[in-house]
């Protein structure tokens, strides 16, 4: 239906732009989901880890914040190569390659957006007042029960925040995709690459429309994230600050 020339989801964008945008949204949504599944248990385990482990883990998680995306992309490209351990096993399992595929892109996005999701969640877990955890332990609650019944409800705003930031950040992914994804429409041609193509081909009008759309969407998403973060919240109180 989205390719129907008579109908357009966003009338000012060309069908190829919309395809790229939908691909980006799909990539962002799936990566964010995967990131939440990884980041929540990992952050929870990390709150119990000894200090040196925390320092090491936090530094590693923060790497994508400071590294040029191309560095990450370069190493991913090496890892995805069919003769490498990861690329080889993937090829054996699925018969496809990770490089220049949507799955590879997702793996890249997960690494690339990891700090945006993991950091707010980890920080929120760390801020849970210790007495809550200790009293639950004293009552006999297991670590998993404490995560489900105390940490998740108390930190739900930070988790939403992390998910929102992760989503928005993946939506804007460019450097990593450039290295590992290539430019296959509907598979790896995400919206940032599409914009780059427009500029390359001097289609400034199309570039302008796409850029503005992306700007507007990202801003709206961030507005939503921060509104949730700053909402006072009626009963039940869900502040993690004591």
């Amino acid at each position: 239906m989205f390719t129907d020339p008579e109908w357009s989801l966003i009338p000012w964008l060309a069908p190829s732009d919309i395809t790229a945008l939908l691909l980006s949204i799909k990539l962002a949504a799936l990566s964010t989901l995967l990131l939440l599944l990884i980041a929540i248990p990992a952050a929870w385990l990390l709150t119990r880890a000894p200090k040196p482990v925390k320092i090491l883990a936090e530094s590693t998680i923060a790497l994508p914040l400071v590294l040029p995306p191309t560095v990450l992309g370069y190493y991913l490209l090496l890892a995805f190569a069919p003769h490498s351990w990861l690329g080889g096993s993937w090829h054996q399992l699925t018969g496809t390659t990770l490089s220049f595929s949507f799955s590879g892109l997702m793996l890249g996005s997960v690494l690339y957006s990891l700090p945006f999701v993991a950091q707010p969640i980890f920080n929120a877990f760390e801020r849970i007042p210790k007495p809550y955890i200790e009293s639950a332990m004293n009552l006999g609650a297991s670590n998993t029960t404490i995560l489900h019944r105390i940490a998740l409800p108390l930190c739900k705003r930070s988790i939403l925040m992390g998910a929102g930031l992760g989503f928005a950040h993946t939506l804007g992914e460019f450097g990593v995709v450039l290295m590992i994804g290539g430019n296959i429409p509907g598979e790896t041609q995400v919206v940032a690459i599409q914009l780059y193509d427009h500029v390359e081909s001097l289609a400034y009008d199309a570039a302008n429309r796409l850029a503005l759309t992306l700007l507007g969407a990202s801003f709206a998403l961030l507005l939503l994230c921060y509104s949730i973060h700053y909402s006072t919240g009626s009963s039940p109180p869900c502040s993690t600050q004591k």
Partner: protein
Amino acid sequence: MFYAKVALQRPNVRALDAFSLDVEIAFDRPQIYALYGPSGSGKSTLLRVLTGFEPSAHAKIILKNRLYQEGDKHSPPQQRPFGYLSQHEDLLPHLTLNQNLAFAEQCAARSSRTSEQPTRYTPPLDRSELLNLLKLQPLSHHYPDQLSQGEKQRTRIARALLQQPQLLLLDEPFVNIDHDSKEMIFGYLKKVVERWSVPIIFVSHIFSEILALSDYLFIMDRGGITIHGETATVLSDLNNPINSTHLASSLLDVTHIQYDTTHQLVEAALEDQTLLFHASPEHIQTTYRIAIYAHAISLSLEKPHACSILNTLKATVIDIEQDTLDALIKLKIGRQYLISRITLRSLETLNLTVGQTVFALIKSVAITPPAF
């Protein structure tokens, strides 16, 4: 029933003085035990060791023939049947009072502890019964931030009991609680011990709480226990350090005779003599434990007439301990002891000697109303 030997060394870190704890506690009756001592004497740390939150401590902990810690064996907090009230607010803010209690029940039901538990309560400590006992029923849909300090504390006590603990550990449970709520909670705790035979250890640095609540007293100082014994016995020992302070006092067990409704006075029997003190009608019981400060007791060689002091007790002087300014006189009435503090001048004027019979004059209003 309960035995704990605890040793903990904490080196001097960041301006905090080095601290060491070396304590041995044993008891075999379900009653209320108090840990009393100044701040920093290790009372709270001792409770944390018992609950399993101080992994660096060396301890041997046995409750009802079950070993919870010794050498390398260290049961995690989840597996220790010790209800624990820390000094911190820890009711879950996103759950209502009722949900907080339900959470405790679910945790207790799921934890491996229940299956291992040596003895279970029959009938088990039950949520609706506790809600009634602690007068929490009307508040059950409130969130913690809608509760007063006293209500929160009652909820936390209920929550600790719902895990069917074999021992209840309360760390300064009455801080920030107004006088009336405090008295109410004293009463509930006594009922809990009576109803379910749960022994309680509570930590306090407030002497009046010790007087009102404790059956047995451990006095702690600088990481060790200096004196311990039945509270009334410890208090009647003139050499006990408390007795050199203005807190010197006596505990007496008395039996109800009749109630003067007009004046709200209880007439009670102390051995073969009578004693009058205030109590509101709802606090009437068959027996009372009353506390009297030593400085509130005057001595007379004769029975006074036309005097506002309602209580005149005939007693025998059995010990005299002189201080720089005052003297402590230990008196015996039947099997019970009373301590009076008088000036050295009075001691000389009355020329008191051991074995002498005197009259102890006690204002009714100076008798601490019993915690019901």
